[in-house]
Protein backbone atom coordinates (compact mmCIF):
# COMPACT_ATOMS: atom_id res chain seq x y z
CA UNK A 1 0.00 0.00 0.00
CA UNK A 2 2.92 2.27 0.72
CA UNK A 3 3.93 2.24 -2.93
CA UNK A 4 0.61 3.34 -4.31
CA UNK A 5 0.74 6.30 -6.69
CA UNK A 6 -0.60 9.22 -4.79
CA UNK A 7 -1.11 11.49 -7.78
CA UNK A 8 -3.88 9.32 -9.12
CA UNK A 9 -6.18 10.03 -6.27
CA UNK A 10 -5.95 13.78 -5.97
CA UNK A 11 -9.39 15.21 -6.49
CA UNK A 12 -9.76 18.35 -8.57
CA UNK A 13 -8.22 21.36 -6.91
CA UNK A 14 -9.95 24.15 -8.83
CA UNK A 15 -12.38 24.88 -6.05
CA UNK A 16 -10.78 24.82 -2.66
CA UNK A 17 -12.86 24.46 0.46
CA UNK A 18 -11.73 27.93 1.45
CA UNK A 19 -13.95 29.33 -1.25
CA UNK A 20 -16.87 28.20 0.88
CA UNK A 21 -15.58 29.73 4.06
CA UNK A 22 -18.16 32.20 5.00
CA UNK A 23 -16.47 34.55 7.41
CA UNK A 24 -12.86 35.23 8.22
CA UNK A 25 -10.42 33.08 6.35
CA UNK A 26 -7.10 32.28 7.89
CA UNK A 27 -4.27 34.70 7.28
CA UNK A 28 -0.91 33.83 5.80
CA UNK A 29 2.00 32.33 7.71
CA UNK A 30 4.24 35.36 8.22
CA UNK A 31 1.45 37.53 9.40
CA UNK A 32 0.52 34.80 11.87
CA UNK A 33 3.93 34.92 13.48
CA UNK A 34 3.67 38.68 13.89
CA UNK A 35 0.26 38.38 15.44
CA UNK A 36 0.86 35.45 17.77
CA UNK A 37 2.00 37.77 20.54
CA UNK A 38 -1.22 39.74 20.25
CA UNK A 39 -3.19 36.52 20.50
CA UNK A 40 -1.23 35.39 23.55
CA UNK A 41 -1.91 38.72 25.23
CA UNK A 42 -5.57 38.38 24.50
CA UNK A 43 -5.53 34.87 25.93
CA UNK A 44 -3.76 36.25 29.03
CA UNK A 45 -6.69 38.58 29.55
CA UNK A 46 -9.31 35.80 29.55
CA UNK A 47 -7.36 32.93 31.09
CA UNK A 48 -8.63 31.65 34.45
CA UNK A 49 -6.54 33.15 37.21
CA UNK A 50 -5.28 30.37 39.40
CA UNK A 51 -4.16 27.67 37.00
CA UNK A 52 -3.12 25.17 39.65
CA UNK A 53 -6.36 25.50 41.59
CA UNK A 54 -8.50 25.41 38.47
CA UNK A 55 -6.87 22.31 37.08
CA UNK A 56 -6.99 20.55 40.45
CA UNK A 57 -10.69 21.25 40.87
CA UNK A 58 -11.68 20.26 37.35
CA UNK A 59 -13.15 16.83 37.98
CA UNK A 60 -15.89 15.30 35.87
CA UNK A 61 -17.90 12.15 36.24
CA UNK A 62 -17.51 9.61 33.48
CA UNK A 63 -20.35 9.58 31.01
CA UNK A 64 -21.68 8.01 27.83
Amino acid at each position, binding site marked *: MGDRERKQIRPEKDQSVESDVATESAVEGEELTDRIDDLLEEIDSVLEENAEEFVKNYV*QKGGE
Partner: protein
Amino acid sequence: MGKAGRSRRSPRVSTCDTSIVTSHRILGTETEYGITVQNEAEFNPVLASSALINSYAGGRARIQWSFDEESPGRDARGFGFEDSMPSEIETGLVNVVLTNGARLYVDHAHPEYSTPECFEPREAALYEKAGEVIIARAAESAQMLLAAGQRMLIHKNNSDGKGNSYGSHENYLLTRELPFGEIVSHFTGFLVTRQIFTGSGKVGSENGRPATHYQITQRADFFEEEVGLETTLKRPIINTRDEPHADSAKYRRLHVIIGDANLSEVQTFLKLGSSSLILQALDDGALPEPVVLADPVAAVRTVSCDLSLRDLLALSNGRSLTAIQAQWQYLEWATKYANASDLPEVYGDVLRLWEEVLTDLELDPLRTADRLDWTAKLSILDAYAARDGLEWDDPKMRLLDLQYHDVAPARGLYHRVVASGRMQRLFTDEQVEHAVSNPPERTRAYFRGRCVGKFGSALVAANWDSLVFDIGEDSLKRVPMMEPLRGSKDRVGDLLDRSDTPADLLRALGGDDG
Protein backbone atom coordinates in the same frame (compact mmCIF):
# COMPACT_ATOMS: atom_id res chain seq x y z
CA MET B 1 -51.24 3.99 13.94
CA GLY B 2 -50.08 2.75 10.56
CA LYS B 3 -52.48 5.11 8.89
CA ALA B 4 -50.56 8.20 9.86
CA GLY B 5 -47.40 6.81 8.38
CA ARG B 6 -49.09 5.79 5.14
CA SER B 7 -50.97 9.00 4.75
CA ARG B 8 -47.78 11.00 4.55
CA ARG B 9 -47.22 9.27 1.25
CA SER B 10 -50.28 11.04 -0.14
CA PRO B 11 -49.78 12.10 -3.78
CA ARG B 12 -49.22 15.77 -3.10
CA VAL B 13 -46.25 15.26 -0.84
CA SER B 14 -44.70 12.15 -2.25
CA THR B 15 -41.36 12.12 -3.97
CA CYS B 16 -40.04 9.18 -5.88
CA ASP B 17 -39.33 6.12 -3.80
CA THR B 18 -35.64 6.15 -4.75
CA SER B 19 -35.23 8.76 -2.04
CA ILE B 20 -35.70 6.00 0.50
CA VAL B 21 -32.64 4.26 -0.90
CA THR B 22 -30.45 7.17 0.15
CA SER B 23 -31.68 7.04 3.73
CA HIS B 24 -28.46 5.32 4.59
CA ARG B 25 -26.58 8.58 4.35
CA ILE B 26 -28.40 10.17 7.24
CA LEU B 27 -26.22 11.08 10.17
CA GLY B 28 -26.08 13.01 13.41
CA THR B 29 -23.99 13.50 16.54
CA GLU B 30 -24.40 13.42 20.32
CA THR B 31 -22.16 15.50 22.55
CA GLU B 32 -21.78 15.29 26.31
CA TYR B 33 -20.40 18.49 27.75
CA GLY B 34 -18.16 18.89 30.76
CA ILE B 35 -19.91 20.90 33.47
CA THR B 36 -18.58 22.57 36.58
CA VAL B 37 -19.75 25.20 39.05
CA GLN B 38 -16.95 27.12 40.67
CA ASN B 39 -17.06 28.00 44.35
CA GLU B 40 -19.84 25.53 45.04
CA ALA B 41 -18.78 23.21 47.85
CA GLU B 42 -21.74 20.91 47.26
CA PHE B 43 -21.42 20.83 43.47
CA ASN B 44 -23.71 18.18 42.04
CA PRO B 45 -23.23 17.75 38.28
CA VAL B 46 -26.64 16.13 37.85
CA LEU B 47 -28.44 19.04 39.47
CA ALA B 48 -26.32 21.55 37.60
CA SER B 49 -26.98 19.80 34.28
CA SER B 50 -30.71 19.72 35.05
CA ALA B 51 -30.68 23.42 35.87
CA LEU B 52 -28.90 24.12 32.61
CA ILE B 53 -31.39 22.15 30.50
CA ASN B 54 -34.35 23.69 32.28
CA SER B 55 -32.96 27.16 31.87
CA TYR B 56 -33.05 26.94 28.11
CA ALA B 57 -35.86 28.57 26.20
CA GLY B 58 -38.46 28.56 28.98
CA GLY B 59 -41.19 25.97 29.03
CA ARG B 60 -42.39 26.14 25.47
CA ALA B 61 -40.39 23.24 24.21
CA ARG B 62 -40.61 21.12 27.35
CA ILE B 63 -41.86 17.89 25.91
CA GLN B 64 -41.19 14.56 27.43
CA TRP B 65 -38.90 12.19 25.65
CA SER B 66 -40.66 8.87 25.27
CA PHE B 67 -38.39 5.91 25.88
CA ASP B 68 -40.99 3.32 25.02
CA GLU B 69 -42.08 3.73 21.46
CA GLU B 70 -44.76 1.08 21.76
CA SER B 71 -46.58 2.55 24.75
CA PRO B 72 -46.27 6.27 24.58
CA GLY B 73 -49.24 6.86 26.85
CA ARG B 74 -47.47 5.18 29.72
CA ASP B 75 -44.64 7.62 29.48
CA ALA B 76 -46.72 10.66 28.83
CA ARG B 77 -46.99 11.78 32.42
CA GLY B 78 -46.41 15.23 33.75
CA PHE B 79 -42.98 16.40 34.62
CA GLY B 80 -42.79 18.55 37.66
CA PHE B 81 -39.23 17.80 38.45
CA GLU B 82 -38.41 21.36 39.39
CA ASP B 83 -39.83 20.77 42.84
CA SER B 84 -37.88 17.61 43.37
CA MET B 85 -34.21 16.84 43.58
CA PRO B 86 -33.42 14.87 40.47
CA SER B 87 -31.29 11.83 41.11
CA GLU B 88 -29.32 10.07 38.45
CA ILE B 89 -32.16 7.62 38.00
CA GLU B 90 -34.60 10.39 37.34
CA THR B 91 -32.47 12.26 34.88
CA GLY B 92 -34.28 10.50 32.08
CA LEU B 93 -37.00 13.02 32.80
CA VAL B 94 -34.84 16.04 32.11
CA ASN B 95 -35.37 16.16 28.40
CA VAL B 96 -36.19 18.89 25.98
CA VAL B 97 -37.09 18.54 22.33
CA LEU B 98 -36.14 21.68 20.46
CA THR B 99 -37.67 23.51 17.53
CA ASN B 100 -34.61 22.59 15.47
CA GLY B 101 -35.50 18.93 15.95
CA ALA B 102 -32.64 18.29 18.39
CA ARG B 103 -32.76 16.71 21.82
CA LEU B 104 -31.27 18.42 24.88
CA TYR B 105 -31.06 16.35 28.05
CA VAL B 106 -29.12 15.14 31.04
CA ASP B 107 -27.13 11.98 30.50
CA HIS B 108 -25.28 10.53 33.47
CA ALA B 109 -23.80 13.67 34.97
CA HIS B 110 -23.50 15.78 31.84
CA PRO B 111 -25.69 18.00 29.72
CA GLU B 112 -26.01 16.37 26.32
CA TYR B 113 -27.16 17.62 22.95
CA SER B 114 -28.14 15.34 20.08
CA THR B 115 -28.37 16.94 16.68
CA PRO B 116 -31.47 16.32 14.64
CA GLU B 117 -31.14 13.78 11.84
CA CYS B 118 -29.13 15.47 9.10
CA PHE B 119 -29.06 14.78 5.39
CA GLU B 120 -25.36 15.32 4.80
CA PRO B 121 -22.19 16.03 6.80
CA ARG B 122 -22.04 19.81 6.36
CA GLU B 123 -25.55 20.05 7.76
CA ALA B 124 -24.59 17.78 10.66
CA ALA B 125 -21.57 19.96 11.44
CA LEU B 126 -23.82 23.03 11.38
CA TYR B 127 -26.35 21.49 13.78
CA GLU B 128 -23.58 20.36 16.10
CA LYS B 129 -22.27 23.94 16.17
CA ALA B 130 -25.81 25.19 16.84
CA GLY B 131 -25.81 22.85 19.85
CA GLU B 132 -22.77 24.66 21.27
CA VAL B 133 -24.62 27.95 21.03
CA ILE B 134 -27.68 26.42 22.68
CA ILE B 135 -25.61 24.97 25.53
CA ALA B 136 -23.69 28.23 26.02
CA ARG B 137 -26.93 30.22 26.20
CA ALA B 138 -28.49 27.73 28.58
CA ALA B 139 -25.46 28.01 30.84
CA GLU B 140 -25.74 31.78 30.78
CA SER B 141 -29.39 31.54 31.87
CA ALA B 142 -28.59 28.94 34.52
CA GLN B 143 -25.93 31.27 35.88
CA MET B 144 -28.77 33.42 37.27
CA LEU B 145 -29.81 30.56 39.54
CA LEU B 146 -26.40 30.44 41.18
CA ALA B 147 -25.25 32.19 44.33
CA ALA B 148 -23.04 35.24 44.11
CA GLY B 149 -19.45 34.30 43.34
CA GLN B 150 -20.40 31.03 41.69
CA ARG B 151 -19.83 30.43 38.01
CA MET B 152 -21.07 27.69 35.72
CA LEU B 153 -18.49 26.63 33.15
CA ILE B 154 -19.21 24.33 30.24
CA HIS B 155 -16.53 22.63 28.19
CA LYS B 156 -16.94 20.82 24.91
CA ASN B 157 -14.20 18.32 25.63
CA ASN B 158 -14.00 14.61 26.42
CA SER B 159 -11.95 14.22 29.56
CA ASP B 160 -11.00 15.89 32.81
CA GLY B 161 -7.39 14.75 32.54
CA LYS B 162 -7.89 12.59 35.62
CA GLY B 163 -9.19 9.41 34.04
CA ASN B 164 -12.83 10.41 33.56
CA SER B 165 -14.11 10.52 30.01
CA TYR B 166 -17.42 11.42 28.42
CA GLY B 167 -18.43 10.97 24.88
CA SER B 168 -18.89 12.60 21.58
CA HIS B 169 -20.71 10.08 19.44
CA GLU B 170 -21.40 9.97 15.75
CA ASN B 171 -24.32 8.11 14.26
CA TYR B 172 -24.49 6.86 10.71
CA LEU B 173 -27.52 5.12 9.26
CA LEU B 174 -26.61 2.06 7.20
CA THR B 175 -28.61 -0.58 5.43
CA ARG B 176 -29.47 -3.70 7.38
CA GLU B 177 -27.97 -5.83 4.60
CA LEU B 178 -24.46 -4.67 5.44
CA PRO B 179 -23.08 -7.43 7.69
CA PHE B 180 -21.66 -6.19 10.97
CA GLY B 181 -18.48 -8.21 10.42
CA GLU B 182 -17.78 -6.13 7.31
CA ILE B 183 -18.03 -2.96 9.34
CA VAL B 184 -15.59 -4.32 11.89
CA SER B 185 -13.03 -5.50 9.34
CA HIS B 186 -13.14 -2.40 7.13
CA PHE B 187 -13.96 0.46 9.46
CA THR B 188 -11.62 -0.31 12.38
CA GLY B 189 -8.49 0.67 10.46
CA PHE B 190 -10.20 3.82 9.27
CA LEU B 191 -11.23 4.86 12.78
CA VAL B 192 -7.77 4.25 14.23
CA THR B 193 -5.96 6.23 11.54
CA ARG B 194 -8.47 9.06 11.11
CA GLN B 195 -7.39 10.27 14.56
CA ILE B 196 -4.73 12.36 12.80
CA PHE B 197 -7.50 14.72 11.68
CA THR B 198 -10.23 14.05 14.25
CA GLY B 199 -8.29 14.77 17.45
CA SER B 200 -8.89 17.82 19.61
CA GLY B 201 -5.53 17.48 21.37
CA LYS B 202 -4.68 16.81 25.00
CA VAL B 203 -1.86 17.68 27.37
CA GLY B 204 -0.52 14.53 29.04
CA SER B 205 -2.03 11.09 29.41
CA GLU B 206 -4.37 9.44 31.91
CA ASN B 207 -6.26 6.27 32.74
CA GLY B 208 -3.05 4.51 33.69
CA ARG B 209 -1.42 5.02 30.30
CA PRO B 210 2.30 5.78 29.88
CA ALA B 211 3.27 9.42 30.19
CA THR B 212 3.33 11.66 27.14
CA HIS B 213 3.60 15.46 26.84
CA TYR B 214 0.83 16.02 24.35
CA GLN B 215 -1.31 13.74 22.24
CA ILE B 216 -3.55 14.14 19.23
CA THR B 217 -6.82 12.94 20.75
CA GLN B 218 -8.68 13.35 24.02
CA ARG B 219 -10.05 9.83 23.87
CA ALA B 220 -7.24 7.44 22.93
CA ASP B 221 -6.36 6.75 26.57
CA PHE B 222 -9.78 5.17 27.06
CA PHE B 223 -10.06 2.48 24.37
CA GLU B 224 -9.43 -1.07 25.48
CA GLU B 225 -11.34 -3.42 23.17
CA GLU B 226 -11.80 -3.93 19.44
CA VAL B 227 -15.54 -4.57 19.46
CA GLY B 228 -18.18 -4.40 22.18
CA LEU B 229 -21.39 -2.99 23.55
CA GLU B 230 -19.88 -0.95 26.37
CA THR B 231 -19.52 2.80 26.24
CA THR B 232 -18.49 3.53 29.82
CA LEU B 233 -16.02 0.75 30.64
CA LYS B 234 -13.61 -1.14 28.44
CA ARG B 235 -14.59 1.10 25.57
CA PRO B 236 -14.43 -0.59 22.14
CA ILE B 237 -13.19 0.88 18.86
CA ILE B 238 -16.35 -0.44 17.21
CA ASN B 239 -19.46 -0.15 19.34
CA THR B 240 -22.14 -2.74 18.74
CA ARG B 241 -25.16 -0.80 19.94
CA ASP B 242 -27.85 -1.60 17.41
CA GLU B 243 -30.73 0.75 17.89
CA PRO B 244 -31.62 2.20 14.50
CA HIS B 245 -34.48 4.44 15.68
CA ALA B 246 -36.03 3.52 12.34
CA ASP B 247 -37.32 0.43 10.57
CA SER B 248 -34.91 -2.16 11.93
CA ALA B 249 -35.61 -4.55 9.06
CA LYS B 250 -34.12 -1.98 6.68
CA TYR B 251 -31.57 -0.05 8.70
CA ARG B 252 -28.85 -0.28 11.22
CA ARG B 253 -27.31 2.70 12.98
CA LEU B 254 -23.57 2.63 13.49
CA HIS B 255 -22.81 4.31 16.81
CA VAL B 256 -19.22 5.58 16.63
CA ILE B 257 -17.85 6.37 20.06
CA ILE B 258 -14.14 6.82 19.41
CA GLY B 259 -14.21 10.41 18.14
CA ASP B 260 -13.31 13.61 19.96
CA ALA B 261 -15.66 16.54 20.33
CA ASN B 262 -14.34 19.14 17.90
CA LEU B 263 -14.74 22.88 18.14
CA SER B 264 -13.48 23.49 14.61
CA GLU B 265 -16.33 23.57 12.11
CA VAL B 266 -14.04 22.49 9.29
CA GLN B 267 -12.74 19.56 11.30
CA THR B 268 -16.21 18.41 12.33
CA PHE B 269 -17.20 18.48 8.66
CA LEU B 270 -14.12 16.50 7.64
CA LYS B 271 -14.59 13.93 10.40
CA LEU B 272 -18.25 13.33 9.56
CA GLY B 273 -17.83 13.63 5.81
CA SER B 274 -14.90 11.24 5.43
CA SER B 275 -16.46 8.69 7.79
CA SER B 276 -19.80 8.89 6.02
CA LEU B 277 -18.15 8.42 2.62
CA ILE B 278 -16.21 5.37 3.75
CA LEU B 279 -19.34 3.85 5.28
CA GLN B 280 -21.40 4.53 2.17
CA ALA B 281 -18.67 2.96 0.03
CA LEU B 282 -18.66 -0.04 2.35
CA ASP B 283 -22.45 -0.26 2.31
CA ASP B 284 -22.38 -0.21 -1.49
CA GLY B 285 -19.64 -2.85 -1.66
CA ALA B 286 -17.08 -0.40 -3.03
CA LEU B 287 -14.19 -0.94 -0.60
CA PRO B 288 -11.84 -3.45 -2.21
CA GLU B 289 -9.88 -4.82 0.73
CA PRO B 290 -9.77 -4.12 4.43
CA VAL B 291 -6.73 -2.46 6.02
CA VAL B 292 -6.39 -4.90 8.92
CA LEU B 293 -4.18 -3.67 11.75
CA ALA B 294 -2.29 -6.33 13.67
CA ASP B 295 -3.18 -4.71 17.00
CA PRO B 296 -5.82 -2.03 16.55
CA VAL B 297 -6.22 -1.28 20.26
CA ALA B 298 -2.51 -0.57 20.72
CA ALA B 299 -2.52 1.38 17.44
CA VAL B 300 -5.17 3.79 18.77
CA ARG B 301 -2.67 5.12 21.25
CA THR B 302 0.34 4.81 18.96
CA VAL B 303 -1.36 7.13 16.48
CA SER B 304 -2.58 9.53 19.16
CA CYS B 305 0.86 9.93 20.75
CA ASP B 306 2.84 10.25 17.52
CA LEU B 307 2.91 13.98 16.76
CA SER B 308 5.32 13.41 13.88
CA LEU B 309 2.74 11.17 12.18
CA ARG B 310 5.55 8.88 11.05
CA ASP B 311 5.15 5.81 13.25
CA LEU B 312 4.51 2.62 11.34
CA LEU B 313 1.51 0.51 12.24
CA ALA B 314 1.83 -3.24 11.70
CA LEU B 315 -0.77 -4.89 9.50
CA SER B 316 -1.95 -8.46 9.93
CA ASN B 317 -0.50 -9.32 6.49
CA GLY B 318 3.00 -8.61 7.74
CA ARG B 319 3.34 -5.22 6.07
CA SER B 320 3.15 -1.87 7.82
CA LEU B 321 2.10 1.68 7.05
CA THR B 322 1.72 5.08 8.69
CA ALA B 323 -1.65 6.55 9.64
CA ILE B 324 -1.28 9.09 6.83
CA GLN B 325 -0.57 6.35 4.29
CA ALA B 326 -3.66 4.49 5.44
CA GLN B 327 -5.72 7.65 5.06
CA TRP B 328 -4.37 8.26 1.54
CA GLN B 329 -5.57 4.76 0.72
CA TYR B 330 -9.04 5.43 2.16
CA LEU B 331 -9.18 8.75 0.31
CA GLU B 332 -8.34 6.96 -2.94
CA TRP B 333 -11.15 4.46 -2.42
CA ALA B 334 -13.60 7.15 -1.38
CA THR B 335 -12.73 9.23 -4.45
CA LYS B 336 -13.28 6.28 -6.77
CA TYR B 337 -16.55 5.52 -5.08
CA ALA B 338 -17.72 9.13 -5.23
CA ASN B 339 -16.82 9.45 -8.90
CA ALA B 340 -18.86 6.36 -9.71
CA SER B 341 -21.87 7.36 -7.60
CA ASP B 342 -24.54 9.97 -7.69
CA LEU B 343 -23.70 11.68 -4.42
CA PRO B 344 -24.70 15.18 -3.29
CA GLU B 345 -22.14 17.81 -4.31
CA VAL B 346 -21.06 18.37 -0.73
CA TYR B 347 -19.04 15.15 -0.85
CA GLY B 348 -16.77 16.78 -3.45
CA ASP B 349 -15.93 19.36 -0.78
CA VAL B 350 -15.23 16.52 1.65
CA LEU B 351 -12.77 14.92 -0.77
CA ARG B 352 -10.96 18.21 -1.48
CA LEU B 353 -10.68 19.06 2.20
CA TRP B 354 -9.55 15.55 3.09
CA GLU B 355 -6.79 15.75 0.48
CA GLU B 356 -5.65 19.23 1.56
CA VAL B 357 -5.49 18.21 5.19
CA LEU B 358 -3.51 15.01 4.47
CA THR B 359 -1.12 16.96 2.25
CA ASP B 360 -0.52 19.54 4.98
CA LEU B 361 -0.25 16.97 7.76
CA GLU B 362 2.42 15.21 5.74
CA LEU B 363 4.42 18.41 5.16
CA ASP B 364 4.08 19.75 8.71
CA PRO B 365 1.12 19.05 11.00
CA LEU B 366 1.12 22.66 12.25
CA ARG B 367 0.11 23.78 8.76
CA THR B 368 -3.36 22.51 9.68
CA ALA B 369 -3.64 24.79 12.74
CA ASP B 370 -6.23 26.87 10.89
CA ARG B 371 -8.49 23.82 10.50
CA LEU B 372 -7.80 21.22 13.19
CA ASP B 373 -8.24 21.61 16.94
CA TRP B 374 -5.25 19.49 17.93
CA THR B 375 -2.79 21.55 15.92
CA ALA B 376 -4.48 24.86 16.76
CA LYS B 377 -4.19 24.02 20.45
CA LEU B 378 -0.63 22.78 20.03
CA SER B 379 0.46 26.02 18.40
CA ILE B 380 -1.00 28.04 21.28
CA LEU B 381 0.73 25.79 23.81
CA ASP B 382 4.04 26.01 21.93
CA ALA B 383 3.86 29.78 21.74
CA TYR B 384 2.89 30.14 25.39
CA ALA B 385 5.59 27.76 26.56
CA ALA B 386 8.18 29.63 24.50
CA ARG B 387 7.13 33.04 25.80
CA ASP B 388 6.78 32.10 29.46
CA GLY B 389 9.37 29.34 29.64
CA LEU B 390 6.78 26.74 30.67
CA GLU B 391 7.35 23.00 30.88
CA TRP B 392 4.67 20.57 29.74
CA ASP B 393 3.77 19.67 33.33
CA ASP B 394 3.05 23.29 34.26
CA PRO B 395 -0.58 23.67 35.40
CA LYS B 396 -0.89 26.58 33.01
CA MET B 397 -0.44 24.18 30.09
CA ARG B 398 -3.31 22.03 31.39
CA LEU B 399 -5.40 25.16 31.92
CA LEU B 400 -4.80 26.34 28.35
CA ASP B 401 -5.83 22.88 27.17
CA LEU B 402 -9.06 22.95 29.21
CA GLN B 403 -9.97 26.50 28.39
CA TYR B 404 -9.62 25.91 24.67
CA HIS B 405 -12.92 24.01 25.04
CA ASP B 406 -14.91 26.54 27.11
CA VAL B 407 -18.10 27.17 25.09
CA ALA B 408 -18.50 30.76 26.31
CA PRO B 409 -17.37 32.91 23.38
CA ALA B 410 -15.73 35.46 25.70
CA ARG B 411 -13.63 32.86 27.54
CA GLY B 412 -13.12 29.90 25.23
CA LEU B 413 -9.70 29.94 23.59
CA TYR B 414 -11.07 28.30 20.44
CA HIS B 415 -13.35 31.32 20.10
CA ARG B 416 -10.47 33.71 20.69
CA VAL B 417 -8.39 31.98 18.02
CA VAL B 418 -11.26 32.16 15.53
CA ALA B 419 -11.84 35.83 16.36
CA SER B 420 -8.16 36.52 15.68
CA GLY B 421 -8.60 35.23 12.12
CA ARG B 422 -6.26 32.29 12.61
CA MET B 423 -8.87 29.61 12.17
CA GLN B 424 -11.25 28.96 9.31
CA ARG B 425 -14.97 28.72 9.73
CA LEU B 426 -17.44 26.89 7.56
CA PHE B 427 -20.56 28.76 8.64
CA THR B 428 -21.68 32.31 9.22
CA ASP B 429 -23.15 33.35 12.56
CA GLU B 430 -26.46 33.79 10.73
CA GLN B 431 -26.42 30.20 9.49
CA VAL B 432 -25.70 28.92 12.98
CA GLU B 433 -28.43 31.13 14.43
CA HIS B 434 -30.92 29.77 11.91
CA ALA B 435 -29.97 26.22 12.89
CA VAL B 436 -30.47 27.05 16.58
CA SER B 437 -34.21 27.49 15.98
CA ASN B 438 -35.09 25.79 12.70
CA PRO B 439 -34.88 22.12 11.76
CA PRO B 440 -33.03 20.59 8.83
CA GLU B 441 -35.42 20.36 5.89
CA ARG B 442 -34.60 17.03 4.27
CA THR B 443 -35.28 14.54 7.07
CA ARG B 444 -38.07 13.71 9.52
CA ALA B 445 -36.42 16.17 11.93
CA TYR B 446 -38.27 18.81 9.92
CA PHE B 447 -41.63 17.39 10.97
CA ARG B 448 -40.52 17.04 14.61
CA GLY B 449 -39.06 20.53 14.84
CA ARG B 450 -41.99 22.23 13.14
CA CYS B 451 -44.47 20.37 15.38
CA VAL B 452 -42.56 21.45 18.48
CA GLY B 453 -42.56 25.04 17.24
CA LYS B 454 -46.15 25.21 16.09
CA PHE B 455 -48.00 22.67 18.23
CA GLY B 456 -45.68 22.28 21.19
CA SER B 457 -48.46 22.68 23.75
CA ALA B 458 -50.27 19.63 22.33
CA LEU B 459 -47.17 17.45 22.13
CA VAL B 460 -46.89 15.21 25.17
CA ALA B 461 -44.00 13.01 24.12
CA ALA B 462 -41.47 12.70 21.38
CA ASN B 463 -38.62 10.48 20.42
CA TRP B 464 -36.60 9.88 17.29
CA ASP B 465 -39.26 7.83 15.56
CA SER B 466 -42.57 9.15 16.84
CA LEU B 467 -44.51 12.10 18.20
CA VAL B 468 -47.44 11.82 20.60
CA PHE B 469 -50.17 14.44 20.64
CA ASP B 470 -52.87 15.18 23.19
CA ILE B 471 -55.65 16.99 21.38
CA GLY B 472 -58.11 16.74 24.22
CA GLU B 473 -59.66 13.44 23.24
CA ASP B 474 -59.80 10.20 25.21
CA SER B 475 -56.67 8.72 23.74
CA LEU B 476 -53.33 10.19 22.86
CA LYS B 477 -52.47 10.31 19.18
CA ARG B 478 -49.20 8.84 18.07
CA VAL B 479 -47.57 9.70 14.77
CA PRO B 480 -44.90 7.15 13.87
CA MET B 481 -41.89 8.28 11.85
CA MET B 482 -40.04 5.10 11.03
CA GLU B 483 -38.65 6.35 7.72
CA PRO B 484 -35.99 8.99 8.37
CA LEU B 485 -36.52 10.75 5.03
CA ARG B 486 -40.28 11.12 5.38
CA GLY B 487 -41.44 14.18 7.21
CA SER B 488 -39.14 16.39 5.14
CA LYS B 489 -40.18 19.87 4.07
CA ASP B 490 -40.98 18.63 0.57
CA ARG B 491 -43.38 16.11 1.98
CA VAL B 492 -45.05 17.87 4.89
CA GLY B 493 -44.14 21.56 4.68
CA ASP B 494 -47.38 22.71 3.03
CA LEU B 495 -49.43 20.48 5.26
CA LEU B 496 -47.85 21.99 8.38
CA ASP B 497 -48.34 25.50 7.00
CA ARG B 498 -52.01 24.84 6.30
CA SER B 499 -52.85 23.24 9.65
CA ASP B 500 -54.00 25.79 12.22
CA THR B 501 -54.41 23.31 15.05
CA PRO B 502 -52.85 19.98 15.95
CA ALA B 503 -56.25 18.39 15.27
CA ASP B 504 -56.12 19.80 11.73
CA LEU B 505 -52.67 18.37 11.31
CA LEU B 506 -53.62 14.91 12.54
CA ARG B 507 -56.73 14.91 10.36
CA ALA B 508 -54.63 15.83 7.36
CA LEU B 509 -52.19 13.07 8.20
CA GLY B 510 -55.08 10.66 8.65
CA GLY B 511 -53.74 9.66 12.02
CA ASP B 512 -57.03 9.75 13.89
CA ASP B 513 -56.69 6.21 15.23
CA GLY B 514 -53.78 7.16 17.49
